[in-house]
């Protein structure tokens, strides 16, 4: 019964947070609603014995990603209320409605299919356990996925993918630095005062760039 209560509270937090993200006018409120959803999901992870994933979820999502969102919101100064009424094109509203209804229909169908699948899987697992004659944790409910099991999987079966993620992170960091660096002409339409001195700084750094005004007008187009 405790599990049901935990699930209900966490699921309600998730759904309220998700709807809040979509409906809130202020991006800061949306980010905080996202935190609520992420914490609810972390609780659900704990309820499903995925403790390490829950910790990573809290650290990475709530600790890094949402902070990054808030940082960008504050940095750009876009934390004013957006006009929800002119937020969507009518065609997009219809597309969204179709997406929601179609998703709900697929959901109902899927749940029925999954229930059948689970029944089949359970009988299969029981047969396998019976054939192995000792059981010995081969029944699905006996399994405990602690960190060592996860680490063994991560560093044996998925070791190449794991190494590739480090490459991905390096690429992401380099790409972000290049993107977020104020480049020539990227801000031709705004931030006039900051542009001038930054422009001088860039010229100072890159001595080979001589015709900077021509570059600015071309790149800004």
């Amino acid at each position, binding site marked *: *019964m405790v599990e*049901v209560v935990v*699930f209900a509270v966490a*699921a309600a937090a998730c*759904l309220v947070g*998700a*709807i809040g*993200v*979509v409906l809130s006018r202020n*991006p800061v409120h*949306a*980010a905080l609603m*996202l935190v609520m*959803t992420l914490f609810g*999901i972390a609780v*659900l*992870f704990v309820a*499903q014995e*995925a403790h390490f*994933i829950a910790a*990573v*979820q809290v650290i*990475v*999502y709530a600790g890094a*990603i949402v902070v*990054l*969102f808030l940082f*960008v*919101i504050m940095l*750009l*100064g*876009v934390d004013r209320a*957006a006009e929800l009424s002119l*937020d*969507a094109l009518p065609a*997009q509203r219809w*597309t969204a409605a179709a*997406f*929601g209804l179609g998703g*709900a229909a697929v959901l109902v169908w899927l*749940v029925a299919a*999954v229930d059948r699948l689970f029944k089949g*899987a359970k009988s299969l697992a029981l047969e396998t356990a019976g054939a192995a004659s000792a059981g010995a944790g081969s029944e*699905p409910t006996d399994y405990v*996925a602690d960190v060592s099991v*996860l680490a063994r*999987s*991560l560093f044996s*079966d998925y070791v190449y*993918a794991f190494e590739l993620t480090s490459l*991905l*992170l390096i690429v*992401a960091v380099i*790409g*972000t630095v290049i*993107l977020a660096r104020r480049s020539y002409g*990227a801000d031709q*339409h*705004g931030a006039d005062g900051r542009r001038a001195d930054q422009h001088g700084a860039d010229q100072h750094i890159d001595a080979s760039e001589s015709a900077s005004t021509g570059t600015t007008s071309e790149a*800004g187009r």
Partner: protein
Amino acid sequence: MNGLEVVTSWYLILGALLFIIGGIGLLVRRNPLIMLMCVELMLNGVNLSFIAFSDRFGDVHGQTVVLFVLVVAAAEVVVGLGLVVAVLRASPRATADDLSALKG
């Protein structure tokens, strides 16, 4: 015990609902930051389904996949926010509708 217990289908339904809500938000919102948050919602719905299946079938591979999804989501947010910063610096009030410079 009155027979009410948490079954895997509930987690799957919740994950699908999060995915649907995130998708709707992605379609109806115009603020690029909120759109990125909605992408995070969709990813979390999928993560929840992965963990539910992992728990149900006693297979740790689902959790491993969720770890990779987390890493890719972090990278995606970093690059996406870099793009948003670059775009919004150029035109501070831009919405997703205004970003049509590449339209043929």
